[in-house]
């Protein structure tokens, strides 16, 4: 295979391609339309693009083939879709771009968009968000559910998209650039609590996979692996990827929030549309 073929999707999904293209086009158009003072800097734009490209790469290139036929690659794929990618996107603070497009939604459309707003507010209730974040990992790794998801093309796409969307919701809640002192954003203490709360269940699941003597996910046995690898090794690496890196990311998240808390600590600032914290480059 030539390098070019590695960039082509294993399983072409027009909807996925369109969604990613739409995000890029909207981001870049919004960026160019913003006044220079409000425009995110190079580092922030780079972080955003890196997050989006990472998610696209694991979903819609040859990487997806290996994710379907190797358990540990699949865990790596979800690590990017549910953790790393959305974390980078949230950290890049695309709020000015979101606001730019938000202001351009015609008044007439707002009644139709209202239900989306309600759903969003429910999903962003701190404990619902944390429950969903961990719950989805457990849901798709439930052995019988995982088996079905790897066998059914539709379920497989639903799985990957649900992980990505939930990752975006959760990490946006955590890294919301608005200060809790001047906006309705979640308090720093709550953000840290959520980050710590989600560590334990993920570690339990990862450790259970690592120390399981039997084959938990035999679908990779049934469907054939991408290359010959001992099933135990595949499961072991996959378990470690479920166990260690997510906890580390929670740890990094806590440090970032602590940093913001120190800079933002208690000083009540007037509410300002441009009050953007943390990741300004």
């Amino acid at each position, binding site marked *: 295979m030539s390098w070019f073929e590695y960039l082509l999707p294993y399983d072409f999904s027009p909807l996925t391609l369109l969604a990613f293209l739409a995000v890029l086009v909207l981001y870049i158009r919004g960026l160019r339309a913003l006044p220079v003072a409000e425009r995110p800097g190079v580092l922030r734009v780079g972080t955003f693009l890196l997050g989006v490209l990472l998610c696209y790469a694991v979903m819609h290139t040859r990487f997806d083939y290996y994710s379907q036929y190797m358990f540990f690659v699949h865990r790596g794929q979800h690590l990017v879709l549910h953790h790393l990618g959305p974390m980078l996107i949230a950290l890049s603070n695309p709020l000015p771009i979101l606001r730019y497009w938000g202001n351009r939604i015609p008044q007439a459309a707002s009644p139709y968009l209202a239900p989306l707003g309600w759903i969003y507010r429910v999903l962003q209730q701190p404990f619902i968000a944390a429950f969903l974040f961990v719950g989805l990992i457990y849901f798709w790794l439930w052995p019988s559910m995982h088996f079905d998801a790897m066998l059914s093309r539709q379920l497989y796409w639903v799985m990957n998209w649900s992980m990505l969307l939930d990752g975006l919701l959760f990490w946006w809640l955590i890294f919301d650039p608005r200060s809790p002192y001047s906006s309705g954003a979640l308090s720093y203490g709550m953000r840290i609590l959520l980050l710590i709360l989600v560590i334990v269940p993920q570690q339990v699941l990862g450790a259970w996979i690592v120390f399981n003597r039997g084959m938990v996910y035999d679908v990779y046995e049934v469907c054939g692996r991408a*290359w010959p690898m001992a099933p135990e090794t595949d499961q072991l690496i996959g378990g470690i990827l479920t166990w260690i890196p997510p906890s580390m990311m929670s740890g990094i998240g806590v440090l970032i929030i602590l940093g913001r808390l120190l800079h933002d600590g208690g000083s009540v600032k007037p509410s300002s549309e441009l009050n953007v914290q943390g990741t300004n480059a």
Partner: protein
Amino acid sequence: MTVRNATPSRSRRLLTTLLLTALLAGCSSGHDWNGKDISGLMPELAFELTDSSGETYRAEEGEGSIRVMFFGFTNCPDICPTTMARLKGAINQMPDSLQDEVTMLFVSVDPKRDTPDKLGEYVGFFGDDIKGLTGDEKTLRKLAKRYRTTFGYNEPDENGDYDVSHSSAVYVFDDEGRARLLLRSQLSRDEISEDLTTLVRETTG
């Protein structure tokens, strides 16, 4: 204000309904199968391959009988011969009148070595009524991808022999070509026989 207060609970109710529907949909099943019920999870049987007489063979030609499909290669040292023997044994164990309702399809994913002649000889060893099928690698990859499986070749040794990795599962399609069951390799002959008998009775009765 009243509207605003009412909304979260309504959305929450909607969410609960959606989650419950999703959970229930995952649990529904008509029979207690020994194999894995894959109804609705996989697309119906469709392919155009070459049979052991070198003729083109399409999935539709087998409609009306239960199709049991297995991916393998004739040089396969262990999984293929044991699976083939177990499947054939399971079919032979079914009530006599039902045996003809089941067709075994052996798809070789090693077209370089498995010529139609060789394929015919191989499947003939296990039974007269087994259909040996193959195609070019592109066609085979498409078929494997359709059923969420893959295969790969190892580097050839000094004699030019190489190993082929492939799915260990057996796919069962009903008389109309709908995907019904996935038989894992640890199922016994009796369990397979029981499932196939149930399926034939369901479709003919």
